């Protein structure tokens, strides 16, 4: 039984990891006052570029970077459109998703049907052998380790660093931030690029570790789930973490429940992750004032330094 639990938790970790990257990246973007709906597209481009890199070079490390850069590159298109051409963020984000889906399919045409054994697991001598903690926390690939650190880093950045304070200021009132001399566009550009990079990593995780292959549209809507997580977690990194694990956890547990033959209709089981995640996050975040405090006030509003 112990082994089943460990196996289930390991699968939960892998299911939560891509959501965590994409959601935390998007959270930083939104904190700067920009709503980027292109997460799904950036994930797919990251996935295909990561997979192509590992196929042609054989290097997992390079592939992870390729995924990151691909996501970033696509997000820069969005940045140019929304920051400098003042295009609608919603429309540009949707366009980015559609573009990403199409472009990744085009780029990945010759990669369909090729297998890869997956990113190597990094074991830490001595620690991985500790019962329970070893296999649960220290038997993963580099991207999972990164996903353990990322929420802490993002939380620290937003709460304690000067740069994080500036980012929040820009997201809450771009006019005020501009008036005291911060370059709103430059800061938002960085936030968008960070969001793109994280979505790219989420994609790289999908095609290099989660199911190490490339097929069209393999993200299957995870970008949209990440977007929803950010809102339901009311822009707080700890709750994004909780939401991602809750969603991943219930997804996996309901599969196990089905395999055990528990007599609950599978349609209900498939709804559970969505229902439970929304219910829990809404319940713990129902304080309206706190939501107001955390929600970036300028989200979605265009800004131009001369107007």
């Amino acid at each position, binding site marked *: 039984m112990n082994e089943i639990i460990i196996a289930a938790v390991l699968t939960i970790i892998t299911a939560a990891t891509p959501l965590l990257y994409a959601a935390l990246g998007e959270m930083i973007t939104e904190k700067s006052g920009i709503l980027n709906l292109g997460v799904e597209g950036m994930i797919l481009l990251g996935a295909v570029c990561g997979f192509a890199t590992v196929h042609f070079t054989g290097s997992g490390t390079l592939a992870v970077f390729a995924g990151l850069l691909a996501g970033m590159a696509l997000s820069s298109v969005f940045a140019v459109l929304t920051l400098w051409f003042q295009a609608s963020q919603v429309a540009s984000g949707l366009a980015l998703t559609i573009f990403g889906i199409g472009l990744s399919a085009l780029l990945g045409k010759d990669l369909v049907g090729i297998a890869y054994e997956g990113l190597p697991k990094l074991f830490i001598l001595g620690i991985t052998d500790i019962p329970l903690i070893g296999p649960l926390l220290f038997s993963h690939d580099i991207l999972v380790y990164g996903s353990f650190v990322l929420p802490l880093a993002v939380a620290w950045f937003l709460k304690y660093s000067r740069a994080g304070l500036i980012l929040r200021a820009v997201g809450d009132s771009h006019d005020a931030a501009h008036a005291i001399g911060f370059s709103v566009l430059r800061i938002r550009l960085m936030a968008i690029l960070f969001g793109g990079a994280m979505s790219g990593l989420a994609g790289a995780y999908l095609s290099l570790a989660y199911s190490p292959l490339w097929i069209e549209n393999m993200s299957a809507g995870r970008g949209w789930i990440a977007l929803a997580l950010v809102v339901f977690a009311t822009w707080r990194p700890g709750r994004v973490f909780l939401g991602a694990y809750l969603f991943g956890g219930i997804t996996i547990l309901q599969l196990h429940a*089905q395999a055990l033959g528990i007599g609950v*209709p599978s349609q209900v089981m498939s709804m559970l992750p969505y229902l439970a995640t929304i219910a829990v996050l809404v319940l713990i975040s129902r304080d309206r004032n706190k939501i107001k405090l955390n929600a970036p006030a300028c989200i979605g509003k265009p800004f131009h330094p001369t107007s």
Partner: protein
Amino acid sequence: MKRKSVLKQVTGAVISASLIFGAQAIKAEDVNVGFVYVGPIGDHGWTYRHDEGRKAVEEALGVKTSFVESVAEGADAERVIRTLATNGNNLIFTTSFGYMNPTLKVAKQFPNVKFEHATGYKRADNVSTYSARFYEGRAILGTIAGHMSKNGVVGYIASFPIPEVVRGINAFTIAMRKVNPEAIIKVVWVNSWYDPGKEGDAAKALIDQGADIITQHTDSPAPLQVAEQRGVYAFGQASDMSAFAPKAQLTAIIDDWNPYYIARVKAAMEGNWASTDTWDGLKEGMVAMAPYGDVVPADVRAAADSVKASIIDGSFHPFQGPVNNQAGENVVKTGDVLDDGALLGMDWYVEGVQGQLPN
């Protein structure tokens, strides 16, 4: 997904618009064939096999074809089918169950255009239906699983609780228990035709709970990859997936639409196309099997081959009695065979399937 199809449609429209549409006098250069796909052509499964069929038509008959991929079932499908008909396609294949009503609706508005709908049951003068008896292939998989499973637990990753999928589960289970009467099937429904991550997770959950063979009725090769990593066996779905699981894949069911598509397009060119209902299987070659994996021993191959041969020559039917339902009650008597009507509406599990059928 939908938006990408628009791009493809525009391309298709440009190609078709440059040809002059002649409704009655059909010559090779005048036959335009359209295809509507539910998934991306790069899914390496269901849609991929249909697209192979389309390419085979182009190559064999030299006709123009066009396709629209990733078309959502429902209202969007109707628009896409109508566009294909407006653009001068005179034979249109709609390749998913959910296109049934949209196909019928558009067919009524274009009486001179011929339609072929896969896996449906509604026909009209200009609408044919066609499908494959995949359950025949499942019976072969079940036979192999009965021999190859050491602990008698097989994991089945299922998509949606429709008769087509239930029929596959039952055919597999019956054949497996003919070899090993103690063996059971654990079914996990993922409520999706295509989600590599979730399919892989389902495979992991099943393996963690003791399954040593994984089989699937979903479209991506992710479960095979998991099986390969975990050192258990699996069966490919819709096409040969041994590239993803060189050691794990025991065999695969292959959908082969090529001969059917070529025959139907040829009939349209020669002017003798008529509305029919086709449900072909191993005998006609619409269902084919991939080569056996290296680990399948000679006696198991022989057993699988003999099941295949007896299905083809008609001496055996996968749903030949005695068949018991999940509760152990006899539903098909010895010597009886379930008829096609019962197969098409199947909504119950046979003995040996664990869990409750969602409905």
